[in-house]
């Protein structure tokens, strides 16, 4: 870059170059080889199609490389393809047509790739063809005469092996030197020669392919290869038995890694955040500011960062599977299962991942090109029971579901059946929701499901890492900031109004309540529990815990819990449970902690043996205000579990839905619909349970 004496950069304006190509042509690898890490990643205005731009300098000329979404033709069938076409034709708001087009053409699949290439050449912008995957083509006995192809197409053709950076400099030279192409020889004639009796949509394809068949004759030389490696891999991978088995193993590996492998990483992050919070707590004077910083901001930031291991691991797998060509085979194998509910096989991995956590699952829906299927998958993902719901299930099943064998089978016990039913419930409700939605809100003509099964390739480590980095970064920068802001708001709602008098009155009424119950109680175990609770109120820790519980109950969230009591009463819940449900909104995994605080236990680690037992004892002893009637019975425990199985009480998930759909309507709709579903489910569970079980 030349810098004048005045210090003002004086360089030629950047050349904008659009990178166009079919999906699975090694376009991303070529992008990285040319421009390195993208300098700008965002969305095109008004659509949720990703815009990726990379800046590089070649021969003193800055070049902005725009990575267009992969497309098969210039008559778009999806928003992704429409963006690519509009940008090329200069019809995208605020974006002039590019100065150059680089068309990525896969040498192993020249015939079909030339369809898009010939359409793009006709636009008339200076064009270069990057002929990729020549090495893979050679393995299959395919040889392409690039010079002859260039002559027949009327534009430059540069063979490149992007992973090894072969031909990259030559390609960059060709980009700078590119001229508007001659119109391809014989194309217009071929299009005109098509039988006019054919429907207009068919004429374009018939004419173009007829021309392509002539172009490749003499350009492509095939050496007979007995049976390619691709065929051999494919024979196993799509085999009815072996393919299915391999698929199950692969999915097990994916799921295990995001469900269990991520756990120690997440614990490590939580530990780090907690340690940091304690250090800060020690540095700041006690008061509202300290609470805001520690419980609001640091805890909020922690709740964002904690999702990174799952997101990174899932996208690692997706990039790996996509890179080697297995992702489409997985969709191929699973398609039939999902067609029934109006989805396609591509929704399988996003939905499966949602059993670990809906957030990476929703983000994984980016691999679904069809916008309707993608949106539907995003909306169904939170219905899969995620790992944050598991502690609630385990606690309730362990404490309130009788541990009796079923049908006399010793190893089949009622709690296990309840647990399995909750997982099934999410899936069944999701299937029904999909069935209804595809017939109402998402009604429309059937979407084309014509999916390429690309050739097998080695995944590029650079591309895999880039994919992981991109997903993590887009979560942190996009959803992360909103989740953090929301955490601070929710912190304020659970800490204000700080009405000391109300808190003290609440503690006093608690004490009176316990005394009254103790006097009339006959059951020895309950007497012991009540006496212990009363005694605890006289210890400093016990009193502190009681104050914290009271403060929580007197906060805006607590008041909201009381306010909604009439709504939750038909579910068998008292207002404290209503509070806990509302207070778990920041993230479902806090619900047990919230229950601990609300029931005056202070901070308990419900996951630990000791904390879990203490919480169970406290919950078992809980009664309705001013009465001896227990709150937690089997029907109530079931209604709580059903509620949590179906509700969308997870602010981070809703933020990510908003981010991925680019609209606030979908998270709001999702929250409302799932809350109603959860309430109805809990209502039916409790009422039916009470009717049969008393």
């Amino acid at each position, binding site marked *: 870059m030349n810098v004048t004496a005045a210090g003002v950069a004086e360089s030629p304006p950047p050349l904008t170059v659009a990178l166009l190509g079919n999906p699975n042509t090694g376009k991303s690898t070529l992008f990285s080889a040319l421009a390195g890490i993208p300098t700008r990643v965002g969305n095109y205005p008004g659509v949720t199609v990703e815009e990726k731009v990379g800046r590089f300098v070649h021969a003193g000329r800055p070049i902005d490389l725009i990575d267009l979404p992969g497309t098969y033709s210039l*008559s778009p069938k999806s928003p992704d393809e429409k963006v690519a076409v509009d940008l090329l034709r200069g019809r995208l708001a605020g974006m002039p047509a590019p100065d150059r087009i680089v068309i990525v053409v896969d040498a*192993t699949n020249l015939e*079909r790739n030339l369809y898009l290439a010939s359409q793009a050449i006709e636009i008339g912008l200076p064009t270069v063809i990057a002929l990729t995957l020549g090495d893979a083509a050679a393995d299959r006995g395919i040889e392409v005469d690039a010079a002859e192809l260039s002559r027949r197409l009327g534009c430059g053709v540069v063979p490149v092996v992007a992973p090894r950076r072969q031909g990259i400099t030559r390609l960059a030279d060709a980009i700078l030197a590119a001229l508007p192409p001659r119109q391809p020889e014989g194309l217009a004639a071929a299009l005109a020669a098509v039988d006019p009796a054919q429907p207009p949509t*068919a004429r374009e394809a*018939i004419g173009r392919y007829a021309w392509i068949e002539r172009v490749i004759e003499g350009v492509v030389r095939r050496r007979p290869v007995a049976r390619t490696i691709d*065929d051999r891999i494919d024979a196993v991978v799509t085999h009815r038995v072996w393919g299915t088995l391999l698929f199950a193993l692969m999915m097990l590996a994916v799921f295990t890694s995001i469900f269990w492998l991520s756990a120690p990483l997440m614990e490590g992050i939580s530990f780090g955040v907690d340690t940091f919070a304690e250090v800060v707590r020690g540095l700041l004077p006690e008061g509202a500011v300290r609470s805001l910083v520690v419980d609001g901001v640091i805890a909020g930031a922690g709740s964002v960062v904690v999702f990174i291991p799952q997101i990174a691991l899932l996208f690692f797998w997706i990039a790996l599977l996509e890179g080697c060509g297995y992702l489409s085979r997985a969709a191929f194998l699973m*398609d*039939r299962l999902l067609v029934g509910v109006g989805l396609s096989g591509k929704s399988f991995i996003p939905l499966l991942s949602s059993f670990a956590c809906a957030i990476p699952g929703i983000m994984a829906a980016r691999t679904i090109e069809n916008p309707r299927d993608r949106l539907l998958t995003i909306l169904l993902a939170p219905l899969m029971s995620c790992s944050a719901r598991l502690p609630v299930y385990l606690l309730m099943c362990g404490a309130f579901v009788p541990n009796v064998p079923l049908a006399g089978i010793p190893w089949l016990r009622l709690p296990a059946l309840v647990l399995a039913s909750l997982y099934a419930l999410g899936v069944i409700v999701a299937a029904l929701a999909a069935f209804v939605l595809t017939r109402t809100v998402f009604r429309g003509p059937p979407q084309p499901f014509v999916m390429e099964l690309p050739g097998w390739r080695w995944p590029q480590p650079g591309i895999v890492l880039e994919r992981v980095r991109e997903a993590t970064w887009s979560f942190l920068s996009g959803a992360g900031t909103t989740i953090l802001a929301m955490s601070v708001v929710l912190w304020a709602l659970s800490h204000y109004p700080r009405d000391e008098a109300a808190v003290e009155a609440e503690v006093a009424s608690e004490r009176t309540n316990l005394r009254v119950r103790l006097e009339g109680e006959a059951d020895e175990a309950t007497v012991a529990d009540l006496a212990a609770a009363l005694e605890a109120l006289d210890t400093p820790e016990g009193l502190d815990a009681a104050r914290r519980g009271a403060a929580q109950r007197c906060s805006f969230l607590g008041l909201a819990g009381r306010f909604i009591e009439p709504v939750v009463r038909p579910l068998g819940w008292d207002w404290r449970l209503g509070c806990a449900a509302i207070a778990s909104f920041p993230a479902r995994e806090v619900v047990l902690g919230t229950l601990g605080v609300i029931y005056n236990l202070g901070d308990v680690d419900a996951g630990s043996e000791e904390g879990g037992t203490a919480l169970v004892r406290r919950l078992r002893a809980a009664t309705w205000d001013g009465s001896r009637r227990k709150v937690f019975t089997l029907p109530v425990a079931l209604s709580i579990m059903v509620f949590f199985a179906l509700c969308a009480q997870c602010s981070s998930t809703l933020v990510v839905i908003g981010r991925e759909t680019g609209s606030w309507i979908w998270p709001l709709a999702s929250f409302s619909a799932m809350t109603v579903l959860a309430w109805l489910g809990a209502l039916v569970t409790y009422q039916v349970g009470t009717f049969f079980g008393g």
Partner: protein
Amino acid sequence: MTSLKEVAIGSTAEVELITGSDPTSERLLEMGITPGVLITVIGAAPLGCPLELEVRGYRLSIRRSDAARVAVFPSLGARSTRAGAMSVRRSLPR
């Protein structure tokens, strides 16, 4: 009229025409399934749908319902070119 849906696994057929003029038909044509082209049915997913096809030297997958709109001339029988052993790979009842 025979459709691609009825072509036996491992067999190759010549495409006669694509019926309909909606986005799905258009996409099938753009992907190279044009009148006169040879298509080999390589296999089917474990549950019978979708189909795995080979056309113009690459593999693609379409659902049986979409295969029904691809009219073909009567089957040319098992082909033994690229995917040599495919005819013995699977025989799925239709």
